């Protein structure tokens, strides 16, 4: 599953790092780093993080109907 965080919006509340610590981590006091390609086993945690981000800064695809996801396109579906 792919994801991207709009770090202009992100306020560093660390909610995502709390809910999906294998995908998101705080680096220092308020900068967020994350893995833009989350493993399949992270699906549910990622979906919770997307839904729980207080500023809706996380966009993820491949979450199929999970709360807060913005697209349902399967991986690379419309590439070539």
């Amino acid at each position, binding site marked *: 599953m792919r994801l991207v965080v709009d770090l202009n919006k992100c306020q560093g509340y660390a909610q995502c790092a709390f809910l999906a610590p294998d995908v998101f981590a705080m680096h*220092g006091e308020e900068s967020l780093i994350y893995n833009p390609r989350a493993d399949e086993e992270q699906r549910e945690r990622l979906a919770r993080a997307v839904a729980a981000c207080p500023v809706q800064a996380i966009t993820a695809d491949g979450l199929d109907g999970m709360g807060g996801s913005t697209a349902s*396109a399967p991986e690379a579906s*419309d590439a070539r």
Partner: protein
Amino acid sequence: MPADHVEWIRREGRIVIVGASLAGLRAAETLRAEGFTGELTLIGDEPYEPYDRPPLSKAALLGMASPRHTELPHRREIDAKWRLGVPASGLDLSAKRVRLADGDEVEYDRLLIATGVRARPWPKEAEARLDGVFLLRTRDDATRLLQKLKAGPRRVFIIGAGFAGCEVASACREMGLQVTMAERAGAPLVGALGGVIGAVAADLQTENGVDLRTRVTVTALEGDTSGRVRAVHLSDESVVEADVVVVSLGSLRNTEWLTGSGLGAGPRGIACDAGCRAFDFRGIVTDDVFVAGDVARSPHALFGYQFLSLEHWGNAVAQAETAAHNMICRGADRRPHLWTPAFWSSQFRVNIKSVGVPPMGDQIMITQGSLAERRFVGVYGYQGRVIAAVSFDNNRWLEFYRRQIERGAPFPVEFPTMDRRPEGRQPVPADFPDPSLPTHGPTVTLSGYSPADQQLVFTPARH
């Protein structure tokens, strides 16, 4: 423009997007979201689907992400024809055709140009080809650099202390590598944030063990007999031994492919109106060619109608959305792209964020926190108003200052703020270097004239 023509374009027109990266993808999604059902083609010279670049100098070098997997999530199905791995090589404006390097041609009813910028290479070609000399713009660049860094070089030399250079220095230090960084100006980040903040950035580098050399230029890269880089020569006659050199000298706009097309495109980007419509070389606006992202230069009402070129992630997204909207709607429904510039960076675990146009500011005030603690907000003023703000580990305030900038709030900032120290009571010169000196981005270029300057002698055309 007649409404039925627009209706026709929305239903069965052909839209071509050149540049399949952040701006290109977000534009494609917006077109579909707003009801475009015609044929959509995305042309990109890189062989990859659109991917995200900011992680390449951060998470990827810190081992949190693979540089091969930063592909952008899609916000929706875009049902597009992808032409990846082939550059557009020319544009025929009157025939409405894009030429591709493989000889193909693609016709359009509306065109969006989002070809971005590329890293400025080391100017001496033979030296630039030495093994161990790297640029950092693409996924391939990042993959190669990371591989080399993982092999444990003895010293990494970074040429240019802009945001990208500073981020690489920071990641290399976290990997435990020895780093030297050279900058022509007096401090890192001065082109983007001025000398007051640059001094803080300099302390950050040196305290974290970077051997920072300022007010010097690199004069030569020296290779060994097998073509590997081994040393860097500086203008102060010092020589630094290094086996990795990262060239971080800012960027060049990808506009060469438009040479001779008649579009107003050149080394400073492609000029467009506030609605993202490109100008031709006569300064006349086109109606079917649009521009978005790093390659665009567009006028902004909030900043005196200066033409802004922004190498900012958020700008690429917002401008792509506006351009896409305007491509398929009637004149009266078009929107101007008046996004307030904003970007972030992260170095040595410090979160740096900015809003507005700092290089336009002539003064700065520290309104929260203190420079010495490296936790502060600095507000930039220009002719009596707030024009920009920067925060180091204090990002929760930025939204407030964004609104101040948008309202044209007065400067110096008069209201009391919590956590304001004596040093922040008076504005001081923001200390930007001479704008004719090269700077490194992701940053802002102002390329309009101030109405107060008489820089041109105008000779009207005669008939």
